[in-house]
Structures are given as C-alpha cells and as structure tokens.
C-alpha cells in the first residue's frame, strides 16, 4: 500500500500528454517551485548546483527576485541557512542536488532538527523512472533524511508541488520549528502543471498550536504567588517564539522579580545586563544559576527541554521544586523530567497571558518582592563566588581574556556572534554577554564542529551592515574552512576569531578529567598558517600572541572590510570552569585548578 512505485507508476501516464504543453497557464515544475518560494517570501537560497537540480538552477538564472548564495559544501549551505534563520526569524532555504548533495546536507539537517531551526531543504532526485535502479548520484534521500527532518516529501507529480512547498513552510515554521526536506525528481522539474497559491492549496490539519487555557494560566499564577524560591529556566524556544516572547519574558520577570537563567540556546532572550540575570546554567553554567535550579521551590521552564547538559544527574535534579513547563511541543513535555504542570502553547502568548493574570491582583509586585527577599539574598551570596573568574596572565593570552576583550571592544556595535563547538563555545557563552535575542548562533543540541563559519555567512546575508563574528577554535574552524571562499565571493566581511590552543580543547579537557591526561590524538599537529591561509583565499589574516597586543589587533580586525581570520594564540592547557562533571548534580560543581582524577563517578564515566 505504501510503496513509492505504486504512486509514481499510477500517475506517470497522465502527465506527459502533449495537451498539457499547450496550456498557457501551465509552468514547468522548476518554475512552480520558485513561484511557491516567492509566495512564501523567500529572498535568499543557500545552495550548490548539480545534475539533478539543473532545471531549477536554470529557472533561478532567469529570476532576480531570489538571491542565490553559492557555498562550497552542502553542509555549509545548511549551516548558513540556519544562521540566516536564527538571526532573522525567517525560514532558511537550501537547494542541493541528489546523491552526495543530499548526504552532505544530512549533518546540517540534523543540527537544525536538534536546535529547532526552521529550514526548507530542496534536493534534486533522479527521474522517477530511475528511482530504485542505483542510478548515477541516486540515493534514498527520503529514507536517509527521515530521521533528521521534521518531515520530508518526495514529489511524485508536478501538480502536487506548489501545495507541498506551502505545507513544508507551514511545518517548518509551526509547532517546534525544524527542517523539512522536499525531494524533487528531475523529470518533475520539467513536468508542466498549474500553480496553486498558498490560500487555495490543500491544507492538512497538522501541527496546530492549541489556544491558551485560562484555567491553566490561573493555576500557574497561583503557584507563582506562593513561590518563595522561584526561577525562570528559559531556552531556545523563547528565541524561536520571536522578539515578542523575549519582551514578554522581560516584562514578566520584572514584575514578578523572579530571577532568570537560560540554556545555551536561549542566551539573549533575557538581557545579560539585568540584575535578575543568573547567567547560563548547566554543565558549564554559573554557580548561581545551577544552585538556584537546585534549590528553587518553583521552576518555570519556558521553551527548554531538560537536555542532559542542563540537568546533570537526573535523580538529583532540582529535588525540592514544583515545575511548570511551557512548551509548544507536547512531546517535549514530561520527556525527561516529570513536571507538575505542563502548559502547551507559544511561549510569547503564554508569557503574556501569565503577565495579564499576574497583574490582576493589586500590590502583587510589592508582596512578591518581600516574599523573595531571602531567596534574593541567597542568590547574591552565590553570585559572590564569581564562578566564571579565571587567572589572567601577562605572558600568554588566556582564552577567556580574549573573549572579554572582544566583548568590550565590540560593545555598542550591531554585533552577531556565531561559534563552533568546544571550549571556545563555552567561553564565548560565559564571557560574551547578550542583551537581545537572535544575536547568538551556536550548535547546541548536535554540537556540530564547523557550524560557526557558514552560520556567520548566513547571518551576514540577513544583516549586511552588522558586525558578524565567528568565535572559533583551531580544530572546528577547519571543518568548514572552504566557506571562506563563499564569504569572499559574496563580499561578506565575517570575522573569524580563532582561539588557537593547538588542541581539540574540549576533548583534551575530558581526557585530563577521565583518562589521566593521556591526550590521545587531541593535539592539532600540522596546523595551517591561518594568516597565509586567509590571504590565499583573498581575505585578511592577523596573528596575535601577547596579551598586550590583543586590543590593537582586535581594533585592526574590526577596521578591515573583508573576511578576516584572526589567529589568537592562547594558552593551551586552560580548562572550562566551572563544570558539573557527568553523573553529578547541580550543586556539585568543580571550579578552577587541576583535576585530581576522582571527580567523576563510575556511573558518570560512561556518559558523554
């Protein structure tokens, strides 16, 4: 009943009738695709051409409405689209060919799935008659990407194409956002059919966000009124819910006086400069954030999914709290941690409803403040630990110091930060501070090294006049280094700030912690000369080795109007602290200093 061949064969005879060719309102599938993308408001496509998408590229060639950014590797196209989407709130669009084009996109799609980034990825496929024959550049794209997309489609008939595109955008945007893939056989791209607008296209009743339930809001506010030790635990979902959600969070936090912490993905939803801000929580989060989570009596999770990097040891996770979980996705609720009160809905809408309900009682703000005074004093004590502090040096550049200087020297600018994955990513999260949403693009769920450079390209496309910096590591940056060429081609002056410690730093840190410092294959031997490499691509390269030279070098980098590789030589043995080791609870953090070897329990050792 559900084989691919049944459908395609059944439909095949109808479509090649010569009458269709003469019908003036009919267009080729490739044109229908572009019409639908235009109607969906697509301005930019990140892509890489190939045999199975030639008709689409030909149609693209004749249109000026959609800009195409050619990348150097399909994974780069997906990350660029992620950066574009995350920084602009729009859906990112990717166009790649069949076979290797599709398989190269898989890492990016999985990244977008885990971090809930709305994408539509168009892949070419061999002609319908060749599917299943191991044709040249054929792969089972639908089968391969089923597990790494929110949904995917194989277009069996050009008549279905416009409706599929419209539904794909609906699926990508709504509910918990994510990547959607449309696989279009090459002959469908030539096949002629009528265009169907978004308004009249078949609408399936899928991914519906339920309306606010006033009873739930009342009960939640009642819990908030009784709380003595509350905390907001916010995640990437607040960013996904748009700037309105961040605004509602700020307003609600201010009126209630509740402190706010955030996951890695949620940074910027609440301003880091606010006195109620606790800093990031989790494995490398702040002492005050993790202790507040451990000691609270009411946890309000908003668009956060209780990731293992956040919870630490589950049976010791926030033992004394009631938990409210606000999430748009019913499957994210009660998945890891059983909560007392799930609220399904859009983060912004729910937060606004909570605020309205909270305001219904007069003098509530004053009452809340006096109720929280003890809790606030406790938090103040934890803050005093200053857990992100590090020992600076005037001989070598400490990576934390480099990020601190980068932050100070870019304050007041329209700045967007992307990162790769590893120690530098954690230091960036700790020492670069965000006051606005959509300013911080990082690979949180999948932890994809190589994300930052192409993501920065996508961000710069969305914000041509902004300052876009990829805070990178020497190992990660080489994974997508070829995208320097894309940046040059499209005049995108992204700044790649490499914290070069000549190690796969985070892996090295774990080897120090868990494997008695046997640094198996984590020393980055034969590193390229990043300055020469930048110049070879047509960009600029800078190198700095002494703390005293850092500020001038950063100033120089900011003044260059083209892509820059900034080789910041930092001390190699620095570890990221504080740290909750695997298998430990939120109140069992490690601080600076050398590891002794018995920090991690037997159970913790088997964890990632």
């Amino acid at each position, binding site marked *: 009943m559900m084989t691919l061949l049944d*459908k395609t064969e059944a439909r095949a005879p109808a479509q090649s009738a010569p009458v269709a060719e003469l019908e003036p309102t009919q267009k080729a599938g490739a044109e229908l695709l572009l019409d639908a993308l235009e109607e969906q408001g697509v301005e930019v496509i990140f892509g890489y051409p190939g045999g199975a998408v030639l008709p689409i590229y030909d149609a693209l060639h004749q249109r000026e409405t959609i800009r195409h950014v050619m990348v150097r590797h399909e994974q780069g196209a997906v990350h660029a689209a992620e950066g574009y989407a995350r920084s602009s709130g729009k859906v990112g669009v990717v166009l790649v060919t069949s076979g290797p084009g599709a398989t190269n996109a898989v890492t990016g799609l999985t990244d977008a799935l885990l971090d809930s980034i709305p994408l539509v990825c168009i892949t070419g496929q061999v002609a319908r008659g060749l599917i299943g024959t191991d044709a040249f550049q054929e792969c089972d794209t639908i089968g391969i990407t*089923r597990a790494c997309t929110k949904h995917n489609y194989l277009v069996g008939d050009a008549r279905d194409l416009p409706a599929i595109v419209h539904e794909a955008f609906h699926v990508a945007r709504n509910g918990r956002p994510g990547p959607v893939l449309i696989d279009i056989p090459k002959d469908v791209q030539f096949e002629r059919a009528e265009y169907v607008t978004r308004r009249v296209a078949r609408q399936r009743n899928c991914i519906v966000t339920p309306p606010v339930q006033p009873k739930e809001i009342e009960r939640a506010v009642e819990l908030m009124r009784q709380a003595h030790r509350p905390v907001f635990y916010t995640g990437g979902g607040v960013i996904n819910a748009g700037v309105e959600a961040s605004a509602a969070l700020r307003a609600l936090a201010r009126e209630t006086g509740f402190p706010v912490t955030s996951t890695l993905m949620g940074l910027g939803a609440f301003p880091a400069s606010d006195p109620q801000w606790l800093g990031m929580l989790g494995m490398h989060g702040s002492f005050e954030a993790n202790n507040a989570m451990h000691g609270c009596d009411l946890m309000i999770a908003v668009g956060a999914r209780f990731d293992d990097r956040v919870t630490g040891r589950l*049976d010791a996770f926030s033992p004394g709290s009631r938990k409210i979980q606000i999430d748009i996705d019913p499957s994210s609720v009660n998945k890891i941690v059983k909560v007392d009160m799930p609220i399904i809905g859009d983060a912004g809408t729910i937060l606004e409803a909570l605020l309205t309900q909270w305001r219904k009682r007069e003098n509530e703000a004053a009452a809340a403040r006096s109720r929280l005074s003890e809790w606030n004093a406790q938090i103040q004590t934890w803050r005093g630990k200053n857990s992100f502090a590090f020992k600076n040096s005037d001989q070598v550049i400490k990576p934390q110091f480099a990020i601190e200087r980068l932050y100070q020297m870019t304050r007041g600018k329209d700045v967007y930060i992307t990162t790769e994955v590893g120690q530098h990513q954690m230091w960036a999260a700790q020492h670069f501070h965000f006051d606005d949403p959509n300013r911080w693009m990082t690979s949180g769920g999948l932890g994809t090294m190589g994300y930052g450079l192409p993501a920065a390209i996508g961000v710069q496309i969305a914000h041509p006049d902004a300052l876009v910096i990829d805070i990178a590591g020497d190992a990660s940056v080489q994974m997508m280094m070829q995208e320097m060429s894309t940046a040059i081609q499209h005049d995108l002056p992204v700044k790649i700030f490499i914290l070069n410690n000549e190690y796969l730093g985070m892996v090295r840190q774990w080897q120090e912690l868990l494997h008695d410092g046997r640094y198996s294959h984590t020393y980055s031997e034969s590193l390229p000369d990043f300055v020469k490499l930048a110049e070879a691509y047509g960009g600029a390269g800078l190198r700095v080795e002494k703390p005293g030279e850092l500020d001038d070098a950063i100033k120089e980098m900011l003044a260059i109007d083209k892509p820059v590789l900034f080789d910041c030589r930092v001390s190699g043995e620095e570890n990221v602290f504080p740290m909750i080791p695997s298998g430990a609870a939120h109140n069992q953090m490690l601080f600076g200093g050398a590891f002794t070897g018995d920090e991690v329990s037997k159970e913790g050792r088997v964890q990632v």
Partner: protein
Amino acid sequence: MENASVYPVPQEEAAVAESILAVIVDNEPGVLSRVIGLISARGYNIESLTVAEVDAEKHRSRITVVTRGTPQKIEQIKAQLGRLVPVRRVIDISEETDALTRELALVKIVSTGDKRVEAMRLAEIFRARPLDTTHTSFIFEVTGARDKINAFLDLLKPLGLTEVSRTGVLSIRRGSEAE
C-alpha cells in the same frame, strides 16, 4: 547486565504495562516507515503492528501498535506519534474500559493418532475453524483476544504445532463513539 548505553538509565519506578494504540494516518508513501522508524529510533518496543487502509476516499489507514512501557513512556510515544505530519489521530485503546481487541491466527498441525484427535478437540473448544485437512495435518483459523490465541498455541505445542501466522492485534472502541 550493566548499562550498555553511554547514557544513564533512570530508575523506572512506575509499572510497565501493555498499551494498544490506534494511529489514524494519511495513506501516503512512507507513512508506515515514519511510524516504525520513530518507534525504533527512540527505543520503544513493538509487540505487534497491523496496518491497512480503512477509508479509500479519504486515503486513511489505521495502524494498530501494541507496545509496552511505563505510563510516562506511553505518553511520550503518543506525543511523538502525534507530531508526525501524516498522523491524524492517536487513540489509546487501552485507556478505554473494555475495548475490543481481536487477532486472527492460521495454525498448522502435523500429527496422527491420539494427538490428532486431541488437536481437533481443542480446536472445537477454541472455536477454531479447519481450513485445510490432509491425513496427517490440519490448518486451523482462530480468532480472539491475544491471550486466547496464546493459550491455544501453548496447548497445541505438544500436539504437532509446526507453523503459525498471526495478523497482530486489531482494536476498536465499544459504543457509539467513532474515531
């Protein structure tokens, strides 16, 4: 055995129970793979699975999945299935009191003499219908709840049971309420 996964296995305190889910889906290419892929990728168990189109006009199919887990796990499976785009509805049949469930089995018995007679007698008791007979074999068709079929098969084991084919569980809710 020690935990083979790199991730911790949280102590599951709640009791594990069987659950029957009816999943109403758009009958489109790949929908069965999506449902099965989701279940296997997330490590849920499938004890039985049946699928067929039930509404040709609307292109709707009904998938019946029998699975096991703690109540939290079952809720998670239902929520995950509900997220799939072609899934129209997930009905937890086991939440209903007295839902009807049926399974059909075809059973081949090869035996002679007393064993053959005893198999015949058992078939009568279980209201199994003979579909094919030779001097040395029977094929029975039996329908009923899964437990009944399991009991029938257990009894037939020493009597020359050689081959079994089962449909897996089908289910429907009692009363006037439709899907």
